[in-house]
């Protein structure tokens, strides 16, 4: 049997990054949420904030742990599976990743230790500071990784030698490529929305169960408040990002829209089946002129088509077309929930509409799905290129790689993640079911002198989440 190492490497990269991106998508927002709670606790002295903070910190720890280990995998795959890409773009992308490590990863990893284990060893202010450093670390990390990704999408600030190696001429242009601001804003907003929907769903579930009601009301009110701001903002940013993509990656937009002909006054296809062989989109249900209006802000503006480029330069439209619709559709659902919550809040019924609360519970994964769908849209949409327009994915892979090696590694990752992910989700669900611990919060320990030792350790046995046998 002939195994294609490039195809398998693509599947492996898609699999490992799809798994990985879920955790940063959640922890970026969650870290900020914990900082807010820690700050409120420190400022007001009300234990309810401290208890909420501890509750979400436990969930954060599980999620962050899985994010860290799956992230290490990513940093090695560039070298193992995409060595030509590493060699040719290492001068450009490498420093961005190295800066990510020294400005973000160390900050997160080091202060995470104090945040998780230092409650009784450092004063409250220092604990708040540690949580703040972790949260800032997650944002700095997002900055660098999206800078690297944006450079691959819309490269700038380089010159290319005869051996294909990219060399940097202007670092400013490398870091701040044309698509970077939009991509960063879209991703960070998406991450905050993802977290907000998880917090809203968990709070709604606790309200339905009449469990730790004061905590759940705080969580629900704050997360929905955030959603009301971010859901419309995200649609606005998404629109700007789309315009930017139209300018720099028109073929990707054509695939997203399912358009084959370059045309004026293009219609917006709501449903359709793009067919790469027949070069057409079947069973179109479309709204006339709307695509032109959205993309060019004019009823008869010109939009690109897939036929603008040769067949071998086109991304695989059926996937891009549909993942894009999933993302946009979920964005509209988010907006609807924001409006619904405003209506209920105005009538003072935010906490006691069972239909609304159940809807929120059902919407728990909405942010994750939207982020995955968006990620697929942008990554598959830039194919067949690794560096857009310059380095083809097929030319970027490791030449010495055997199909069997990649197959073995792909299967190994599937098995490993197949064990880790359900376990992590299981432990998080149990933590959520347990709810916040409403017991009195022990005073923080002394910063000076010998560490304080607890009479009743808050460790291990009491913390177990599985039923005893």
């Amino acid at each position: 049997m002939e195994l294609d190492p490039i195809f398998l490497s693509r599947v492996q990269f898609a699999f490992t990054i799809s798994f990985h991106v879920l955790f940063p998508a959640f922890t970026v927002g969650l870290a900020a949420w914990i900082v807010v709670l820690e700050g409120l606790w420190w400022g007001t002295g009300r234990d309810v904030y401290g208890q909420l903070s501890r509750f979400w910190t436990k969930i954060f720890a599980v999620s962050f742990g899985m994010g860290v280990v799956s992230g290490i995998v990513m940093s090695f795959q560039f070298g193992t599976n995409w060595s030509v890409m590493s060699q040719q773009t290492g001068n450009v992308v490498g420093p961005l990743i190295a800066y990510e490590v020294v400005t973000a990863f160390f900050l997160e990893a080091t202060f995470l230790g104090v945040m998780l284990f230092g409650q009784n060893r450092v004063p409250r202010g220092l604990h708040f500071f540690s949580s703040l450093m972790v949260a800032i670390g997650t944002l700095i990390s997002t900055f660098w990784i999206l800078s690297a990704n944006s450079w691959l999408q819309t490269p700038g600030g380089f010159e290319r030698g005869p051996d294909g190696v990219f060399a940097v001429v202007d670092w400013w242009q490398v870091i701040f490529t044309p698509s970077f601001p939009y991509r960063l804003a879209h991703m960070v907003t998406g991450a905050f929305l993802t977290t907000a929907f998880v917090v809203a769903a968990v709070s709604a579930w606790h309200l339905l169960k009449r469990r730790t009601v004061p905590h759940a009301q705080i969580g629900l009110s704050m997360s929905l408040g955030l959603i009301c701001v971010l859901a419309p903002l995200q649609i606005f940013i998404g629109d700007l990002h789309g315009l930017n993509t139209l300018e720099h990656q028109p073929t990707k937009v054509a695939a997203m829209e399912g358009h084959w002909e370059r045309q004026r006054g293009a219609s917006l296809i709501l449903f359709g089946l793009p067919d790469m062989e027949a070069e057409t989109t079947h069973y179109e249900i479309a709204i006339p002129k709307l695509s032109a209006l959205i993309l060019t802000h004019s009823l008869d503006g010109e939009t690109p088509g897939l036929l603008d480029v040769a067949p071998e330069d086109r991304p695989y439209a059926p996937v891009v077309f549909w993942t894009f619709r999933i993302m946009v559709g979920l964005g509209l659902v988010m907006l609807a929930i924001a409006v619904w919550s405003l209506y209920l809040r105005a009538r003072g019924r935010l906490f006691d509409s069972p239909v609304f609360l159940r809807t929120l519970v059902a919407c728990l994964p909405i942010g994750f799905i939207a982020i995955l769908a968006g990620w697929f849209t942008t990554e598959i949409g830039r194919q067949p290129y690794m560096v857009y327009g310059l380095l083809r994915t097929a030319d970027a892979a490791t030449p010495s790689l055997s199909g069997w090696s990649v197959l073995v590694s792909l299967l190994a990752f599937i098995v490993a993640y197949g064990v880790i992910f359900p376990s992590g989700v299981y432990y998080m669900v149990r933590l959520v079911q347990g709810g916040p611990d409403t017991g009195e919060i022990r005073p923080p320990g002394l910063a000076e002198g010998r560490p304080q030792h607890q009479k009743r350790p808050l460790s291990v046995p009491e913390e177990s989440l599985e039923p005893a046998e």
Partner: protein
Amino acid sequence: MSTIDWAAHLPVIWAGIAVVAVVMYVLLDGFDLGIGILFPYAGNDDDRDVMMNTVAPIWDGNETWLVLGGGGMLAAFPVAYATILPGTYLPLLVMLIALIFRGVAFEFRFKARTSRHVWDRSFHYGSLFATFAQGLVLGSFIQGFEVENRTFVGGPFDWLTPFTVLCGVALVAGYALLGCTWLIWRTEGHLREWCAQLCRPLLLAVMIFVGIVSLWTPFLDNDIAMRWFTMPNLLYLSPVPVVTFLVALGLWRTGTRRHDVVPFLLAMSLFLLSFLGLGISLWPNVVPPDISIWEAAAPPASQGFMLAGMVFLVPLVICYTVFCYYVFRGKVRPGEGYHH
């Protein structure tokens, strides 16, 4: 005013930074991997809790040095990154999978009851396999890669030789020794007693392996042999094995006594000396046996851009790492979970 030849100097500086990153990784993650290696042999579950609690707040930061090693190599020596990683594809895969299972065990173990033994094993075998795989990669690095035209052209199993397997076993013993001496420092009671008893056999094993690897390495490559065994190099370099022997002797004598931090410092010194020996053998190659740091280096625009930041950021990282170790100083006692 003479201009500085950055193209000549930057690769040397970056080679230095790369060595610091790798040394930091090996010393720091080394002892927490070592704890995982020793984990199932501890007397009881309480001891295992204590062992884990001595590193739970800091292991994540330790492992980040590995990512810096990878990211830094991609940035500073892309050619090395693009040849060494494909050349060690399968051992790296084993290492990554092992690190995944080991890493999540820190979180999952304390959340589990009926399935705790699963995460105990995940921690132990994860640490063991990650270490062994790192030894294989180290061995492959020393024995060199088949490279043509800046591309790895060897087979998927080139890394598998008796020499690399020996390096793998040697590193398992080495990390176990680091973990053992760390526990002598950070624990008390019968767990400390047990580690004190374990120290000498582990040290003996490490010295035997280091001896074999050291004697074997010159036979892998004629250049390495020339470097060590010609006059006057032999005289200049002879302090390395002599000091190594003296450090080992010191560890032999202090490991079982009432010293706390001294055995750990001596064990780290053993690692540093081994590194020094390795550096002498391989300098100035970054992809043995042929590619030098200058041939593999990224252009000055990239290396300089990074250096500007590293000069401030790496000391800062070290500062808050020290702070974190300081927060979690002192002996860890049974039942004292710092667990959140």
